[in-house]
């Protein structure tokens, strides 16, 4: 991110700068404290979880114990399948719909767009009772598609891509059509490549949202074969483990590790994506 805080008449200097930095660092430390505490607990034996000593021996036992106590490998696989299924379908459906809204004139387009935007207010998270009934009438309860389906047609994705497609110059579109390309070819060769940063932003937001989503998967799954990580972690922490906090912390870190690593590696993209996705 290009930060333009440097210079300027109100940039803090001297003692002010030291004070401000100290305050910012203090808050940062406070913000990281719960995570550091979990890290400490996860990497030390249970007796040490409440006593802090720099030379305490580090152990991976808690992770091994957590991994062995619940089918986390299966949960990882389920979550991976879930987020890929959702993202894949979202990208296709939202691209097609956004293209229709951005570049086609048809009767009822305005009403259709208003109907799409309604989802921003009436979120699938709130319609749990009725969506559960729909899934059971389809015989889909306790499957990964059942978790994915309500989120696949994403109003947010359609809106974001429509904005991106609208900024593509008409002349490019016309030129491609003159050369005889059909609507889908134009979409694929012209619009999709030009909207790449928006796709990246949307993908990051979608993956982290569905990796973290909890209530709907909790309701619609009840077996190891369909449960994503979040639900698996909750089942593990609330029933299987009792109160062995070292093991629970290890499991907690394990389930968030891929997302945390991805965030630390692609920090810039993450922050920019959330920013781009948020500003409407």
């Amino acid at each position, binding site marked *: 991110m290009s930060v333009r805080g440097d210079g300027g008449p109100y940039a803090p200097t001297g003692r002010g700068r030291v004070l401000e930095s100290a305050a910012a660092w203090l808050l940062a430390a406070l913000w990281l404290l719960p995570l550091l505490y979990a890290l400490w607990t996860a990497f030390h034996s249970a007796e040490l979880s409440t006593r802090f000593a720099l030379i305490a021996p580090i152990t991976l036992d808690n992770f091994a114990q957590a991994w062995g106590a619940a089918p986390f490998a299966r949960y990882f696989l389920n979550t991976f399948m879930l987020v890929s299924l959702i993202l894949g379908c979202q990208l296709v459906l939202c691209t097609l719909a956004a293209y229709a809204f951005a570049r086609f004139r048809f009767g009822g387009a305005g009403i259709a767009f208003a109907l799409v935007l309604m989802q921003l207010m009436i979120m699938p998270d709130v319609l749990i009772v009725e969506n559960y009934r729909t899934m059971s009438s389809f015989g889909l309860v306790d499957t990964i598609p059942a978790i994915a389906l309500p989120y696949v047609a994403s109003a947010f994705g359609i809106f974001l891509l429509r904005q991106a497609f609208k900024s593509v110059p008409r002349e490019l579109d016309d030129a491609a059509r003159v050369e005889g390309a059909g609507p889908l070819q134009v979409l694929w060769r012209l619009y999709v490549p030009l909207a790449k940063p928006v796709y990246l932003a949307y993908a990051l937001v979608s993956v982290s949202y569905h990796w973290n989503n909890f209530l709907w998967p909790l309701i619609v799954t009840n077996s190891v074969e369909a449960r994503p990580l979040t639900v698996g972690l909750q089942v593990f922490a609330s029933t299987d483990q009792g109160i062995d906090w070292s093991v629970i912390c290890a499991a907690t870190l394990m389930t968030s590790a891929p997302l945390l690593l991805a965030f630390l590696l692609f*920090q810039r993209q993450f922050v920019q994506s959330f920013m781009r996705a948020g500003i409407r």
Partner: protein
Amino acid sequence: MLRHSQNAIHGWLLLLPAMALLTLFTHWPALATFIDSFWSTARPRRPAAFVGLDQYRAILADPVFWQSAVNNLVFAVGTIPISIALALLMAIWVNDRIAGRALVRMAYFTPTVLPMIAVANIWLFFYTPQYGLLEQVLSLLGIGSHNWLGTPATALACVIVVAIWKEAGFFMIFYLAALQHIPPPLAEAAALEGASRWTFFRRVQFPLLMPTTLFVLVNAVINAFRTVDQIIVMTHGGPDNATTLLLYYIYEVGFRFWDTSYAAALTIVLLALLAAVSLAQYLLIERRIHYR
């Protein structure tokens, strides 16, 4: 003319898959929820019957509903102003030339990307009586043990702290983006006029950040009224319904007591609340703020 109708057919065909799924999983369930709320829940040997407004009358007479509504209000009032103020402060600090800016920004933003389920478990441990970090620090200071999540007086505050911690960094990035869009000549002009930094913030930066503040505010309100994850992990709505929020109550009624029609009526109340928020957003942003 031919081209026109062809255009329309293509447009609708492109729209069809997304529209079908939206209808199936947003419009239809919303409508069905509304219809359901006028019927009683079907039980074995007692089929659903039309009951008119009975479910809504039951809601008005339901002390748990009122408590969850009040809790949700307290939760919103407790989380939103503090997390927005912190987000603004964080953004100003990270935007200034402080040492280790990148690391500080990372620290603020990290809670946002982690699963709520995971961090709620960490906070649950943090609040644990006797073993948790909070209790250890307090006992060092000579303050006696207290069951933070197990006492009605403190449980909701504990949940509010978690929400602030999770949300502030997310809102920070919107302020950060907006701060970077304020043209530097404004600061130079203000400095020439001899304005103090506080005056510059109050008279220039803060008004220019108003659209961002409204955007963040609306998001924060919507988030506050659909908070449920950390309640399921940390308190199950207890003790004594002290932390029951609206969506948690819907979940409990719908999937623990299986009273689906009553849950449908509760859902309609929540949707009406969210609609009111969106309407307020529309009126406020469209009328008062002229941006871009």
